[in-house]
Structures are given as structure tokens and as C-alpha cells.
């Protein structure tokens, strides 16, 4: 965990209210694993006061060494609107990497099953890095990318670049399967053999629907959760989610015990 004041290297605007911020910071970059996030300030003033949690999107490498990272941000409210206005050179306070990343399959079981990454909207942010790491280990990765409409689909270029096959679904049918991304996932699960490992991130209804499929097909399923976060490091207890402990449930901190959880422990089933 590093607390750094960083100058924005570049900002790159995408379709559908999204943009990519790039920072140079070898410390944070080298320590970041897929599913990690940072807390980043959205301005220097007291409004907005709190930093915003953002997943590590990609790691920037130079000569093989991790020297920076990018964030994939959707403009939704006050803070992200300010962030969208940032210009190269603007300073931000960044604390990271934070949280518990995705649990990766042991290298010797990688070949047995597929790894399916299921994402909705900007929930896609952590998946290109996860795909990169999995592919690097020789896994068979497949992405299911959902969005309201064509311009809400994220990371298609990243997956193409990594040679990861992509199944697309849009609510309005403007690209790919018309309907929810779970439809595409279900079709694949029915077609495919075995019990692929599933990772999902997106709107809660989407993740719950994915989990229903995962449960039905006996798949391991990790989800990356969101909640309003005060601190991102576990001290404010604002980001809790009830987690099953067999006999009882307890509140766990999404920022510390998560953001990645085993879906089976969330009492959704």
C-alpha cells in the first residue's frame, strides 16, 4: 500500500461517458494484482471530500518493468465528472493497491477448465488485467461483455489484443446478443463441458444472475463488489457486506476482505 501524489500522464476519452487515466508510479504498479483497486482524489478541495475507489485497469510496462497503471472510469456523479475534466499534469492523491485481488487458479489446474470473465458496463475495468495474467499462465480465457448499448461495451480492444474470445450482449441489441450478458453466459455453459471458473463484476442484479448460473452448473464464482467507501483501507467500516460463516453471518469489509469475494459466501443462493 503506497500513498502517492501523482501527476496525470494522460487522459483518453472513450465512448459512453468513459475515459482512461494514466499515471506513472512504479510502486503501485509493481504491487498491483488483478482485482486490486486504488482510492483516488477527485479534486483538491473539500467537495467532493472523499476519494473514489477505482479498479486497477491495466499495468503500464517499460522494458518488462511495471512503471504505471491506468484507470477506466465512467462519469456517473460529481467526483467522476471532475476527474473527466482533468488535464495532463494535474495532481491527484492515490492510495493503493488496496483490497484482496482475484484468487488465481493453481497453475497445474489451469488446463482443466475455462476461465470465464463476466462483466457489465464499467465493471469490466479489472478484467483485462485478470485476462492478461491468466493468459500469461496459459489459461483458456473467455470474456462475456454486457452493456446497455454498443457504446457501453468496454475493453473489447483489450480482449482482442490478448486473443481472448468475447461474447457480447447489449440490452438494446445494438451489438451482439440482444439481452443480458447472462443469456450469452448461459448458452455457453450449456454448450461447454466441465465446470469453468467464473469471475464477475457489474451491477448487482447481473452478478446475482451469474451466480445462479454458477450454482446451477457447480462453478466456482468470484465476484468483485462495490459499496460507498469512506477510507478504502478498512478503518471506517462503511463498506461492509454480510458474509456467511456457516453457523452465522458477519459483516466483512469490501475494501479489505474484498472487493473480491467467493459468491457462495454472500448468502445469495
Amino acid at each position, binding site marked *: *500500500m503506497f*500513498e502517492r501524489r501523482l501527476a496525470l500522464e494522460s487522459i483518453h476519452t472513450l465512448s459512453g461517458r468513459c475515459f482512461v487515466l494514466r499515471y506513472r508510479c512504479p510502486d503501485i504498479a509493481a504491487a498491483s494484482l488483478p482485482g486490486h483497486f486504488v482510492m483516488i*482524489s477527485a479534486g483538491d478541495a*473539500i*467537495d*467532493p*471530500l*472523499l*476519494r473514489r475507489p477505482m479498479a486497477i485497469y491495466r499495468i503500464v510496462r517499460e522494458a518488462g518493468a511495471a512503471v504505471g497503471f491506468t484507470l477506466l472510469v465512467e462519469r456517473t456523479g460529481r467526483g467522476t465528472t471532475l476527474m473527466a475534466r482533468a488535464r495532463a499534469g494535474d495532481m491527484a*492523491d492515490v*492510495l493503493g493497491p488496496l483490497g484482496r485481488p482475484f484468487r488465481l487458479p493453481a497453475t497445474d489446474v489451469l488446463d482443466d477448465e475455462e476461465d470465464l470473465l463476466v462483466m457489465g458496463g464499467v465493471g469490466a475495468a479489472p478484467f483485462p488485467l485478470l485476462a492478461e495474467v491468466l493468459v500469461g499462465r496459459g489459461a483458456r480465457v473467455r470474456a462475456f461483455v454486457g452493456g446497455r448499448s454498443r457504446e457501453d461495451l468496454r475493453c473489447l480492444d483489450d480482449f482482442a489484443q490478448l486473443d481472448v474470445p468475447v461474447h457480447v450482449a447489449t440490452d438494446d441489441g445494438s451489438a451482439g446478443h440482444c439481452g443480458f450478458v447472462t443469456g450469452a453466459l448461459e448458452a455457453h455453459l450449456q454448450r461447454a463441458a466441465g465446470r469453468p471458473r467464473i469471475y464477475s463484476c457489474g451491477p448487482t442484479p447481473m452478478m446475482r444472475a451469474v451466480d445462479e448460473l454458477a450454482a446451477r452448473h457447480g462453478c466456482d464464482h468470484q465476484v468483485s463488489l462495490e*459499496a*460507498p467507501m*469512506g*477510507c478504502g*483501507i*478498512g*478503518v*471506517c*467500516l*462503511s*463498506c*461492509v*457486506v454480510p458474509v456467511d460463516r456457516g453457523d452465522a453471518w*458477519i*459483516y466483512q469489509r469490501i475494501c*479489505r476482505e474484498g472487493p473480491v469475494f467467493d459468491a457462495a459466501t454472500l448468502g445469495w443462493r
Partner: protein
Amino acid sequence: MSDPEGRADLAVKVGDVELSNPMLLASGTVGYGEEMAELIDLNRLGGIVVKGLSLEPERGNEPQRIVEVSGGMLNSIGLQNVGADAFVQDKLPFLEQFDLKVIANVWGRTVEEYVGVARRMDAADGVHALELNVSCPNIKEGGISFGTDPVQIHAVTAAARAATEKPLWVKLAPGVTDIGVMARAAEEAGADALSVANTIRGMAVDVGRRRPLLATIYGGLSGPVMFPIALYLLYEVSLVSSLPLIGIGGVSELDHVLQYLTVGATAVQIGTANFYDPTASQRLVDELARWCCDEEIPTVREVIGSLQVGEL
């Protein structure tokens, strides 16, 4: 020495509690210190007030537990904590490694619960002082907050006083007509210092859904917006009480620290700033040391209560 160059004398005494400098971490904003220790050097601070402890572990409130508002935040964490015994067993040993004062923030739903926690803290070696959080509803008295009734403040303070020999601080609630009355009640019941203040009640609504944003409808406001209000409350208390005071609310800049000290605080606590600026407390210690040097103030104790009012 808190001053990196060893020039400034930042030591203060809250009653019998000697602090290397006036900067404390506020209860509920730093857990039990473990996470903060990854970011700052706890040895550099005057002390830490740990998350409010109850007799039994508490789950706390249902989420959504925080909302950001202009210049501050609302929280309704609901005092989730591991409980007094688990604190002593599992959390305190970690803090004992550091050279800073550990203050146990204590709460309960009845006087007896306060007493129970106070006894346990009295027995725990690594705890240097107790801070009573009286902003809790007394379930035996119809749920009226201990902190809004001088009789109840007196009762809970006196009971805790009897349960511990250690320095006893009482943390006052802001939402009262006359905080001076509450301060005097605590003082008369044997408090050794007064912490001013806890969060202020506030609310936020999700207009789209026509629902409160917090699961508990309202919550406690903290952050920079609180500063001028808490400073005034501290001033009010300073007029009627001779106890050492601790300024709490909105501290995020050196100027805040200095304003609290000038009005009469012996120390300050840093709360919400730990969230959006996690190294703030340590930086403020450095800045305070530098300010003392620049202003040629031999000891920060000179600043405490140096406010001048009235005609020049």
C-alpha cells in the same frame, strides 16, 4: 521527539496523560490502529483513540452506512466493534508496540454496560485513558441519549469513575441546547478531561427513490464542515470548565489545530481526514513543529488558551 529536527517542544499533558504532541487519532476513524500503521508511524503521534468498545461484540448497522455531503460525510456505522475482551486480547498487544498513548473509547446501552467496559479497560495494562462516548441512547431511560441529559451524563460518568483509576475523558455530544451544562455535569462526576465533540446529526435523501440514503435514516456529520461548530462548542465549554479539553471535528489543516489550541484545547483528534488524507495526522505533527520554530514559540503549551477577546 516529534519535531524531526528536534527543535520544537510539542509535549502536552491532558491531565495526567502525557502526550508527545497534541495530535490524536479519533475514535471510529482508525479502527484499532493496525491499518493506519501501514501508512504512518504511530510513534510520531500523541495517541490513538480506538473504535468505540462495548461489552459484547457488535455487528453495527445495516448498510448503506455512509453518504458523502458537501465538505463532510454522514455515517451510521452503529458502533460495530469486536467487544472489550477481544480488544484487550487481540488488538491491544499490537498497539502496545508503539510509543503513543492508547485511549479506549467506551460505550454502552446502559450504565452497567459502560461500567463493564470501564472495568475491563482499567485492568488492561496498555490502555492509558478511557474516553466515554455518551452519544448513545440509554435503553433503560426510553432511549434518550446519555449525552443530552446532565443527570444521565453525571450518572454514567460517576459510575465509570468508580470503575477505573485511569484518566477518564468524557466525549460530549454537540446537539444540545447548552453544552456547558453537560460539561459541568461530567466535571462534577469526576471526569479528567472533556472531548468536544462527537458528530452532529444530519440526513441525506435519494430523491429518485424518495428514500433516505442511510439505512438508519439519519447519521452523524463529520469532516471540515464541522470545524467552526465544534470550535464554538469548545469555546463554550472553556467558559465553564477548568478541565483539559480536546478539540474534535474537521481537523485537516494546521490552522484548525492552532485554532483549537488557541481557544483552549490541550490536544486535538483527527477523524474524517484519516479517510481522505490518511497521512494527515503525521504531517500535522511536522507542520506544528515547523510553525513553532518559525514563530519562535518555545513550547506549544503557550498557545493553549491564548485567545484574547474584548477590546484591544
